[in-house]
């Protein structure tokens, strides 16, 4: 297993398993897990999470996570 730090922004904080918060939390995931695995584990619907940044760099859903990485997940915002 590896440990990653997850931060859920704005409306996605409701998917925080420790209660609705944008405080970072740790997740233990199997070696070889992708971004997609995290999204599914947290039950975040795909349309709510198009923006995932690993250590502040945008990555796709098939990105393979490494131990200690920080996963930031955003909802799309488009208002003007």
């Amino acid at each position, binding site marked *: 297993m590896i440990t990653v730090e997850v931060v859920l922004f*704005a409306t996605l904080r409701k998917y925080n398993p420790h209660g609705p918060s944008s405080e970072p939390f740790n997740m233990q995931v199997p070696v070889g897990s992708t971004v997609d695995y995290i999204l599914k584990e947290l039950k975040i619907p795909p*349309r709510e999470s198009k923006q995932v940044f690993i250590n502040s760099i945008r990555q796709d859903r098939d990105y393979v996570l490494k131990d200690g990485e920080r996963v930031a997940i*955003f909802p799309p915002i*488009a208002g*003007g």
Partner: protein
Amino acid sequence: MDELVKAVKTVSREKTAPDGQKYESISISAVRDVAAQFSCLPQDVELAALQSDILPERYQRSMGTTGGTRGQALLLQSQAAVVGLGGLGGLVAELLARMGVGTLVLADGDRFSESNLNRQLLATEQNLEESKVSAAQKRIGQVNSAVRMLPFEGIVDENNAPDLLQGCQVVLDCLDNLTSRFLLETVCRDLGIPMVHGAIAQFVGQVSTIFPGDPGLEAIYGPLESGRDKGIEVELGNPAATPALVAAWQVQEAIKVLLGRGEPLQNRLLFIDGEQATCDIFQLG
């Protein structure tokens, strides 16, 4: 000597800046008088003044930012497009006018309604049902008569956008849907114009400055998909402060682009979460 320059020099006055420096200043009324005398635009008079190192007094407090009369002259000779004149665009247009960006393309196809009043700077109880472009023109005319305006009342599409944006040095994406934002980005890319993107929803907002070769909006939103045109603002709405936060950042980015000053938010996304009081910067590609 050019007659206009001679007239400008005649009406300028020496003043002292807050830091004690002396400078030559020209007032708004003197600009108007000279413009009337020469049957030219206030902008022409201001430009003649700036090129003679005479400062239109209205820009005095911008000097530290613009770098003096030369930088101000550069702004006055610049053209920016504000596409969308709602929560973001109304404020963006006014701030660009206050900075003395000389030519503003003002584009929107909408009219003010009551639900705009909570956040759209140019919406008032008196101008409901007025077109946003018309309201912006009136306001900018009151704020800075040296600004030339190129109004466009309608939806920006692939047919009209190239003509509308041609000649701009920067475009401000103040739109409210992804289809139009992606279209604007494509046209900006084709024309080689940097685009300052801003978007808001409830307590959160984002800003990024996209140059023609950058991955841009796709790096933020993923590929454009049919049926996914809006974000979480649809359910959460937008309050008064979030558009002001994001619009201010957009204007600062645009001014930097026009002056060639500072570090733009290029290939970076600024994400502001007002509720958590956090600002993060994320790398795009």
